[in-house]
């Protein structure tokens, strides 16, 4: 590839960076709170709730994310053409538009849904570990001082959990930035998509290396960012 072509490729990739960041950002936005809820459900004293949550986590962590993306994406078209599909569900599913601009929106939402469901399970396990690592004495001290259960969780426990889960969470977040490339399999137009396309056009590996560089820079920035946050939270032990 000529220098000019490379520069053009770089500009093109910058445009496709946005969808990658969009998927990354929205996944974190939903998966982190959902992960906290899932963690609390798993620790729930009502056994069936705890078991069901555990089953969900097992499935999400035990099967490939790529497979989950495909299943979620094809669930609507497959279900509504299934003869056994209940009528009310078919009517509901028939309202989903798969073609044109609406189809693009549908695709993003389904990919996002799969990412959120998957990452929430991983975050849940991290958060649960964090919550369970807080000594019992913290709950007892809070109880003696009259804090309600909600106050205890939000004022005493959660701030300490945040500090403890940062290292493990940073791993997940960095993995996520690279995992967004899986959306390429559904035709989602992000960095990996344009890299593969340009590779074919130019019969050159340069687009792939450039895509790699984009992921590398994002992962490195995140590493630096998390290092900074960890340091900030180091004001107490």
């Amino acid at each position, binding site marked *: 590839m000529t220098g000019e072509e490379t520069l053009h490729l770089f500009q093109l990739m910058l445009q496709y960076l946005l969808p990658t960041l969009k998927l990354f950002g929205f996944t974190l936005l939903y998966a982190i709170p959902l992960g906290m809820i899932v963690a609390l459900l798993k620790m729930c004293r009502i056994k069936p709730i705890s078991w069901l949550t555990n089953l969900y986590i097992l499935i999400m962590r035990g099967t490939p994310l790529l497979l989950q993306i495909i299943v979620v994406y094809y669930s609507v078209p497959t279900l509504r053409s299934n003869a056994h599909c209940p009528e009310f569900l078919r009517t509901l599913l028939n309202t989903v538009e798969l073609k044109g601009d609406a189809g693009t929106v549908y695709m993003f939402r389904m990919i996002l849904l799969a990412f959120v469901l998957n990452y929430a399970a991983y975050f849940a396990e991290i958060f649960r570990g964090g919550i369970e690592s807080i000594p019992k004495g913290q709950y*007892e*001290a*809070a109880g*003696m*001082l*009259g*804090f309600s259960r909600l*106050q205890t969780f939000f004022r005493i426990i959660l701030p300490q959990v945040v500090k403890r889960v940062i290292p493990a969470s940073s791993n997940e977040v960095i993995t996520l930035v690279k995992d967004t490339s899986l959306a390429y399999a559904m035709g989602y137009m992000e960095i990996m998509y344009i890299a593969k396309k340009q590779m074919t056009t130019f019969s050159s590996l340069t687009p792939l290396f450039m895509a790699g560089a984009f992921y590398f820079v994002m992962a490195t920035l995140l590493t630096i960012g998390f290092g900074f946050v960890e340091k900030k939270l180091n004001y*107490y*032990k």
Partner: protein
Amino acid sequence: MAKMLEVANLQKSFGDLSVLKDITFDVNQGEVIAVIGPSGSGKSTLLRCLTQLEHADGGTIRVCEEDLLTDKGYKDHKTVRSIRLKTGLVFQNFNLFPHMTVLRNITEAPVCVLKKDKSEAQKRAMELLSKMGLEAKADAYPCELSGGQQQRVSIARALALSPEILFFDEPTSALDPELTGEILKVIKELAAEGMTMVIVTHEMAFARDVADRVIFMEGGVIVEQGAPSQLFGENASERVQQFLSRFNS
């Protein structure tokens, strides 16, 4: 004299293990009680039942002439909670909140639980800290303090809620002997001010000097109780003398 604590026939078991069997004793206002006895005698469990960290299985508890546990079980949630705020507990391993400054450790409950004005709570906290000789540490985090300092902060934190009765669960057991003295000094000062206290301790000399009454527990029962002069004297039961002889040698 007002009764601050009335415990009768208190029982508690963990599974098949009966830890408290029929504990009965009273505490008068301004009295300092030392609870002594060998490990596993149920001292800590007794304290945890009185501070509601454990649910007793039977018996009755009255705090400040208000029923907490009766023959019909525990009182309603609201009563139980209001009684709890009249009792303070100082833990063996402090249990300060590590992510809060010393000052916030003390003001958090008055502000969030008692809905006190923040500046007022801070003023009161600074008074308590200066009483503990720690006003310079208000902005420090617990991890920056020595064990003795942390324990003094935790005493200040308990006092910030103005409890009617203060319980201590082996307050010096996690401290080296040099730091033990500073905690005992604080407790002595509180005693002089008329604070009602129940102290589980292994510091026999301290129990003898400060307590108005000493309770010796073993095997989930109170073996003997009385004035320090009685328990530490020659007329104490053989078992008490045998136990104490280990500390004197």
